[in-house]
């Protein structure tokens, strides 16, 4: 199930991860190595714990009072859940883009600059804003209206603004939780193109419901499914995307990607 590559190329690793909501175990026994500068997609039916697992990678689950977890997330040789690790710092290193575009109700410029400022950025802010917007392939569309509200943009633009905002704080890993589910197909394509460009500098983990998207734009794919007995999610199969979509090892995987359930 795990990749054949050497451990030095891993951006982040999950070891025996279980996430609980109260007494309910949402995902169980996840072991996963995410490779650097690759796009890894989590696919699976609704409720199988893809987003829960994704949030475990930057401790966003901490914000849900009833959730807790065990197991380890190893990042740069350190478990993110060790007591001496500050979750605020984790989230800066491992950024996140959400399902619904959620720009701040402030100017486009301020949307980018705020994250940098609160993280103590000392350089030229204009330059950072421009570079981040360029990296998110939205500069040309917004360069003349940086003082307008982020909410004045279209859905696809808003999502790219959110990506620009995320990369402005220079993370190493970007977690994307179904970033295209609220977007039309053209905006979706643009985000996918963007992901390919970002891949050169960032490691990306994406949760998606869209099998074509996973097939088109990811290097690795993890298929999660829900255990019929305790209703918790577990990882069925993890392999290179091309292999999974052409030659799935597991019966469930094959049924899912050919659309027979889910």
């Amino acid at each position, binding site marked *: 199930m795990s990749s054949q590559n050497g451990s030095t190329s891993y951006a982040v690793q999950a070891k025996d991860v279980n996430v609980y909501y109260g007494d309910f175990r949402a995902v169980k026994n996840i072991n996963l190595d995410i490779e650097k500068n690759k796009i890894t997609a989590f696919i699976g039916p609704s409720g199988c714990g893809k987003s829960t697992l994704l949030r475990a990678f*930057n401790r*966003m689950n901490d*914000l849900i*009072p*009833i959730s807790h977890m065990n197991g380890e997330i190893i990042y740069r040789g350190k478990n993110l859940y060790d007591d001496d690790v500050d979750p*605020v*710092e984790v*989230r*800066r*290193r491992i*950024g*996140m*883009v*959400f399902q*619904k575009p*959620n*720009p*701040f*109700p402030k100017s486009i410029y301020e949307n980018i600059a*705020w*994250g940098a400022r*609160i*993280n103590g950025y000392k350089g030229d802010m204009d330059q950072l804003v421009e570079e981040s917007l360029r990296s998110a392939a939205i500069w040309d569309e917004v360069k003349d209206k940086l003082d307008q*509200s982020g*909410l004045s943009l279209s859905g696809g633009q808003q999502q790219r603004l*959110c990506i620009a*905002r*995320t990369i402005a*704080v220079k993370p190493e890993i970007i977690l994307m939780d179904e970033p295209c589910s609220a977007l039309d197909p053209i905006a979706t394509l643009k985000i996918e193109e963007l992901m390919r460009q970002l891949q050169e500098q960032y490691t990306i983990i994406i949760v998606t419901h869209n099998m074509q998207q996973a097939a088109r734009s990811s290097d690795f794919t993890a298929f999660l499914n829900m255990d019929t007995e305790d209703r918790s999610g577990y990882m069925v199969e993890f392999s290179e995307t091309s292999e999974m979509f052409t030659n799935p090892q597991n019966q469930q995987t094959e049924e899912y990607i050919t659309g027979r359930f889910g």
Partner: protein
Amino acid sequence: MENYENLYPVDDELQKFIDYRKRTGSIWRGVFLMSLFVAILVLIVLMLNIINDAFGLVAVENEIDPHSLVIDYQENTMVNMPNTLVSADHGDLANGIIDNDSAIGFIGHAHYQANADELRLIAVDGQFPTAETVADGSYPFVRPLYIYTALDTLQSEPAVAEYFRFYLENANLVVGEMGYFPADETLVADQISLINKLAGSPQTADSVTGDLALSGSSSLYPLSRQMLVDFRQAGFNGDIGIEQIGSTAGIEAFCAGDIQVLNASRPMTAAEASACQRNRINPVEIAVGLDALAVVSNPSLDFLESVSWNELSLIFTAMNFWDEIDPSYPALPIVRSVPSAGSGSLNFLSARIFSDIALENLPTAAYADIIRDKLGRGRGRALERDQRFLADGFIFDSESAFTTACASDEPPTGCSLGARDRDNLFDVIEQEIIVPQVQETWPLYDSLFKQQEIVNRASAKYPDAIVEFKSWLNRDFLFNPQSSEAELAGVRTAIWGTVMVVATTFLFSFPVGVGAAIYMEEYADQTLWYNKIIQTNISNLAGVPSIIYGMLGLTVFVRLLLPLTSGQFFGRVAEGTDPSGRTVISAGLTLGLLILPIIIINAQEALRAVPNSMRRAGMGLGATKWQTTWSHVLPQALPGILTGTILAMSRAVGETAPLIVVGASTVIRTDPTFFSRFTVLPIQIFQWTSRPQAEFQNLAAAAIIVLLIILLTLNASAVILRNRYSTSN
């Protein structure tokens, strides 16, 4: 499936069912509409009720007519002008004008007629005194002449009745040559028939018995004397006598029952008539002719044809040279002849000339003069020691007495304060000299639709009172402090009290309330049992009766925290006085406690309404909870928080019960400080409504309008704030 379809109504049954549903719908719609009507109706009735009380007719009785103060002042000015001859004898006045080339003056028309070749008659406002202008009233300085007797005398002494008839029938024949003007013929005829009705049919002069004794006005003296002589010649054989003691003194003696027939150059005032009534003397008033006062000058002032009202006022009270009146006149000094103050003519003249000058228009120096003349010495000294009337001297105190007082251990405030300003002097005059007292008030509805009836009733009941339309809500009401005189009472101190109490409330409850809400919403784990208890408690506290907060405020702020709330701790309580915790601070903090739960709940709602995606977006960028809350959650929640806070503040503005418990005062005459006793608008309203006098109900209505305006302003600002923030997002 067919089975199910059969279970739904069809055709007629379906139509009935649809009709039934529609009918039910319209009935409910009607019920809702009725509810709306009832609500609107109640509101309208409430507003009308308040407006009905806040405006309307009032009968105000002044201790001294303010206009008489003006007249007195102007008279004083007139007789004290330089180059002015003052005399009661019109012959002297005439001679003064004849002897001086640039003289002008007032004399009786009879005296002008006697010296017509040496005097120049001047038109007033274009009118000369002639039989026509006097008869039709276009010449202004005309006064009717009267003879009076008591009804009993008229009926029991035939000589008096016969003399009155003789007077009326013959006076008009001789007035022309004597310099008087005749009375209106119809009026004469009416008065003769009145006497016939009261005293029986006419007899002849020689057939009546009894004596005749006349007294009173010197203006009427020559005419009445002539009539006595003629009456004797017509055959009357009783004793006759006539004295001249002046109209005012004459009326006084007449009403005391000392005079048989009274001569008067002015009608009795209502007050004098009622004094007569009290002595069981029913005066019968008979008008016998008209007397005119002429404006005359030395013949050399040939440039002067006619004088306007304004010129008269300038000539006799202000200017000293003719060219100051009009640049085209020669630069000669103005020399004046004016009847003396005791003569009655002066009073008549000044009442006419200065009728348009209101007390408000007099110069500031006049106010000091009026205070000096009319205010009692003891009261004047007390007021002067509070604050001086003049910057450069004293009215009631001698310089040395004042210096001694200022050198004492506790010098009066008058030593350090500057002199009173114009408004202050005016207030002193109004409160200490005029002393207006509301005798009766009428609501707006009656004032509009039964005006005549009210005016008639009021003039019978309060002969000296002025019936006027009054808006109880006026400038003075807003700027005057509380007073026990309804006419002078205002809400300034109550408005200040409200503003300061509410400011304290806001400063306390806004930061505390919003802080608590932020903790509960953003930090506290709401699943924990103690947080649940706190949340429930906050919700329940919002429903606790406000008087209980009053008890809490009394115990905690007024008693326990006395050193803080009285200002003692801050050195704000003078040595030797007992500190009192019943202060603005205590009241503000009590109201702050009262609205704290409301602010917390509203702020929590507002924070909860901020989408969680904002918090996740912030946290996902590596922001701390506080950074996210401060930069994104709070700004988005702010309009809601402010709206809730303002609505809570308007609750505090209208609150009465807890403040009564905390110890609001009702009579506060000085503007409050944070550590002083206080009153607020609702307390003031409560106090006024609980007083028995009707005029305080009117004041309460006006104060309610002020309170409503403050509340509406607060609520409107909440709406504007909300709209502005929601459009800017």
